């Protein structure tokens, strides 16, 4: 579904930038780890379409599957792939209603080649198997019933990145809070003076303007959400560990954020707000039959759109950046010269995209927070006296 589109984009782009010579080290300089990741994925990726490849070295033995690489990158994984064959093993935590808790290192799966403790990896997911202990994955048989009863709360790459970013948030803002109490009444300094305008921006241009006089109550959530999204958008742009995870582009993360906004809106909604949803004043009864479902749908759609917008924007950014790099290897498969030629264009476009993504990182954090504030503002708005 995605692949034909990507391939078409590659061909058009490649035609534009084909023909030049050596620029691979430039590409390495800008985004070396992504390039590394791409290079190593070349080993790992299975030849899905059976390109005829004449090989020199291991890298050319299998076809390069850009779609799989990109989806692997923007998705989640047990263990954190660092470079080459090195990955950081992360704890796998499973709860099964029949088997109870199982906790072990993700290295026990051996990248999906082994089953451990009655579980194995299948297409990136943990599934329950009938065999116990260390078994080769090819000999294991999946137990559908037990799989359904398994809850996977492993520290995956995204969870790890989430914890790292939370620790960063705590460290940054607790130290800044310390600075505020230590230097009370004085001009901001250092990190404080970098963060303060952003806090003021969220307070004055987001909370105050969208919520009104009662904004103070919602400031903690708006600030936390803003800085969480902004920080993770930025971390996602850094290709090296502990950045590079696609956390704010993960639907689970945006779902939780949107649900919290929805919860706040629902719990702070006043009589006026619910009255407008269930019985729009000044509308005849028979119209309400149509209008009320629409209003309820609108109420639910707001957080849904919040979720999709952040997810889609950040994921799209990652897909584009990776596509430009995959391009190098797609062309490199046909001839090394073409690969080098495309590398120049890819490098330039990736730099351009990185600049754009910096802007998007801020804009999406702003948009999410501002829309959340707008919805809260609409829920607590007092009726105007006519």
């Amino acid at each position, binding site marked *: *579904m*995605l*692949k034909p589109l990507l391939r078409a984009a590659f061909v058009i782009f490649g035609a534009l930038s084909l023909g030049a010579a050596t620029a691979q080290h430039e590409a390495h300089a800008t985004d070396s780890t992504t390039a590394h990741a791409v290079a190593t994925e070349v080993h790992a990726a299975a030849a*899905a379409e059976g390109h005829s490849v004449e090989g020199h070295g291991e890298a050319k033995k299998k076809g390069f599957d850009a*779609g*799989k690489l990109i*989806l692997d990158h*923007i*998705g*989640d994984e047990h263990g954190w792939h660092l470079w080459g064959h090195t990955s950081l093993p992360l704890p796998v*935590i499973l709860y099964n209603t029949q088997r109870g808790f199982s906790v072990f290192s993700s290295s026990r799966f051996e990248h999906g080649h082994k089953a451990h403790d009655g579980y194995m990896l299948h*297409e*990136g*997911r943990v599934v329950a198997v009938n065999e116990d202990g260390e078994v080769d994955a090819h000999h294991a048989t999946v137990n559908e019933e037990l799989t359904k009863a398994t*809850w*996977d*709360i*492993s*520290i*995956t790459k*995204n*969870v790890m990145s*989430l*914890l790292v970013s*939370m620790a960063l*948030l*705590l460290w940054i*803002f*607790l130290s*800044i*809070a310390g600075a*505020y*109490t230590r230097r*009370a*009444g004085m001009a901001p300094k250092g990190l404080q003076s970098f963060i*303060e305008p952003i*806090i*003021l921006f969220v*307070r004055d241009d987001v909370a105050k303007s969208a919520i009104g006089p009662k904004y*103070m109550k919602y*400031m*903690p*959530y708006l*600030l*936390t959400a803003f800085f*969480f999204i902004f920080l993770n958008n930025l971390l996602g742009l850094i290709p090296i560990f502990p950045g590079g995870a696609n956390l704010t582009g*993960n*639907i*689970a*993360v945006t*779902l*939780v*954020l949107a649900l*919290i906004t929805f919860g706040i809106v629902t719990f702070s909604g006043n009589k006026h707000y619910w009255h407008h949803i269930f019985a729009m004043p000044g509308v005849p009864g028979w119209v309400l039959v149509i209008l009320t479902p629409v209003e309820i749908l609108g109420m639910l759609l707001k957080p849904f759109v919040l979720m999709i917008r952040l*997810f889609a924007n950040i*994921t799209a950014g990652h897909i584009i950046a990776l596509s430009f790099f995959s391009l190098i290897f797609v062309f490199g498969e046909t001839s090394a010269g073409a690969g080098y030629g495309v590398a120049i264009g890819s490098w330039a476009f990736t730099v351009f995209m990185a600049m754009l993504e910096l802007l998007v990182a801020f804009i999406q954090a702003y948009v999410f927070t501002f829309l959340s504030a707008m919805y809260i503002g609409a829920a607590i708005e007092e009726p105007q006296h006519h």
Partner: protein
Amino acid sequence: MFLVTLSLVEPAFGLVFWMTLSFLTVLFILAKFAWKPILNSLHEREKTIEDALSEAKKAREEIANMKASNEDLMRQARAEREELLKEARDVRDREIATAKDKAKAEADAMLGRAREDIRNEKNAAITEMKNQVAELSILVAERILKEKLGDPAAQKALVDKVMTEADLRKS
């Protein structure tokens, strides 16, 4: 391919779990230990600045008021001084004028008297001179007559002469 794409938009339970747990924890900790002191001190600083500004404004206004009242006082004092000076000038002018008048009148009187004296002296002198001249004339005439009338011929000639002149005067 399609399966993987689907998993992209299907929230994973583990991540939802960890995200909810850690986000709410961090939200709670930050709300209590970071956002509260930060927002409070921001608010306080803004208030301090605002207060300082409004105080400065008040002080400025006070100074302006004081300046205005000072200026009023100054203006009054200046007006009073002007008045006093004017009065003094008037008094002096009047004094000078009367003094001048008096002096002039006295001088005039003195001059009048002096003129009178001069005239009197002159008249006396003229009268005396006339008397002396008359006496001298008589003396001279006597002498001449004594001299001339000793000779008869001369007497005759004189009588003729007088006669001629008398004639001439008559005609």
